[in-house]
Structures are given as C-alpha cells and as structure tokens.
C-alpha cells in the first residue's frame, strides 16, 4: 500500500462515513451538514484522479452553493415551529427492496461493463490549463452557449420568484 492508496482510502472513508450519516441520521440538519463532508471527500477523490478542475468546481458549486440551497430548503419547508426536525423510517420493506434492486442493477452494470484499462497514464498533472485553452479556442461556441444556459436559469428563477410583477 503506497501513499496514493492511503490517501484514496482516507477520502473514501470520509465520503462513505459522512454519506452514512446523511442516510441514517434522524436529524435532518445533521444529515445536511454531513453532506458537506461527503462533497469534500468526493472532491479529494477527484484530485487523486487528476481531475483538478472538477475538484474545484465540486468545491465551489456543491460545497459553496448547493449545500447552502439544501439547508435553506430544509429551513423553508419544515414545519419547524410545531414538529421536531426529524426524519422517520417509513415503508421499510418496499424501500429496502427497491434499494436492493437498484444496488443490484448498478453492481450488474459495473461487472458487465468491459472497462478499458490504460497501461500508462499520460501526463495530465493539471487539466485546468488545457481545459481553458480548449474552452476558448476549439470549443468556443459551447462555452458561450453555457452563458446562455445560465441566462435562462437566471431569468427562470426571477420569473418564478416574482410572478406577476412587471418590469418598469
């Protein structure tokens, strides 16, 4: 077991342990905060896979943004005044059946897939540099279209939140 393996298992442990808390915690706030460490662990694994840009995006968007949105969602939707912020276990049998089926099919796909294994990994120590180069030269149009998609999301959010209010 070399250093790489140790670091991998460290991040894998963080991810799985905190994901376990997300699933099994009875308190929904603990679950939401535990998700922070799940996202962090996944970001660490991305770094190990030489995907540094995705790791940065993971930290910025998921840890910085989506998690805040999730916490807001918890605070907005719960009937926190009258009921405890707790999750309950309902429909245990159908749920475990469904989960077992999903897990089985995922494992089936995993073992049935003919994974291509690269013998020597090309030197891709930093992907961000190459990615930026290609974004702004070869794949310029998709890059600009991405801003249009963000524009649509922006306008959609404003439309839903402020329905019926006209501009000017």
């Amino acid at each position, binding site marked *: 077991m070399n*250093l*790489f393996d140790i*670091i991998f298992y460290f991040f894998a442990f963080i991810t799985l342990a905190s994901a376990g808390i997300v699933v099994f915690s009875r308190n929904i706030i603990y679950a939401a905060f535990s998700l922070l460490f799940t996202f962090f662990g996944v970001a660490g694994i991305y*770094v*190990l896979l*030489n995907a540094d*840009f995705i790791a*940065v*995006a993971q930290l*910025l*968007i998921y840890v*910085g*943004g*989506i998690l*805040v*949105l999730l916490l*807001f*969602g918890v*605070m*907005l939707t*719960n*009937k*926190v*005044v009258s009921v405890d*912020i707790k999750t309950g276990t309902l429909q245990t049998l159908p749920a475990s059946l469904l989960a077992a089926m999903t897990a089985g099919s995922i494992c089936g796909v995993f073992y049935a897939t003919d994974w291509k294994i690269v013998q020597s990994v090309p030197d891709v*120590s*930093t992907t*961000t*540099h190459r*990615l*930026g*180069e290609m*974004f*702004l*030269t070869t794949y*310029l149009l998709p*890059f*600009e279209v*991405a*801003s*249009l998609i*963000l*524009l649509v*999301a*922006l*306008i959609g*959010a*404003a*439309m839903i*939140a*402020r329905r019926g*209010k006209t*501009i*000017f």
Partner: protein
Amino acid sequence: MLVDYIPIGIMIVFGVAFGVFMSKASEWLGPKNPNDVKQSIYESGMEPVRSARERMSIKYYMVAMLFIIFDIEVVFLYPWAVNFKQLGMFGLIEMFIFIVILMLGFVYVWKKGALKWD
C-alpha cells in the same frame, strides 16, 4: 502531481487544528465563573423573542439561487484566468461576450425586483 497539493493539505490540517485548538484552549485555560445571567441565551445583546426555529422567508432562497448561478460563472472564469496571458486580447473579448450575456440576466433580475427586500 500529488506533490502540488501538499500546501493545500498543510492548509487544511492547520485550519482544522487551529479551530479545534483555539476553542479547546479557551475551554481549558479560561476561568469559569458561571452565573445565571452569563448562561442565559442572548442574541446581539438583546433578549431573544419568539422561537429560533421559524420558517424563513422565500427571499433567502431566491438570493441563494442567484448566488449559485454566479458561482457557476466564476467556475467558468477560472480556466480562462489560468490562460489569460496566453490568450491575450482574444480571450478577453470572448470572456467579455460571456459576461455581457450574463449581465443581461442580471439587469433583468434587478429590474424585476428580485433583489428588492420588500
């Protein structure tokens, strides 16, 4: 490759250690003379009114959604910033177009009053 992340690792270790050490040090070293007034719950110096567990306004959610959209914009800025010198004027104009498109949305949201707190 992994060597490049050693500073980040040191930073994380020190950050966590500092936070734990400081809070524990004040717990261990500080004098403890509790009384009823000190142990009472307070918020910004005033006595708390109503429950802390209230439903929040939907406006916070709107702000958080806008934050995520601009957060994603920042993620797109990052690979451009890495190549900024190399791409020069060409890259600058491309990014200008990118930001202008998003700025249109920002102006729309602004005019729609989504940033107003009424």
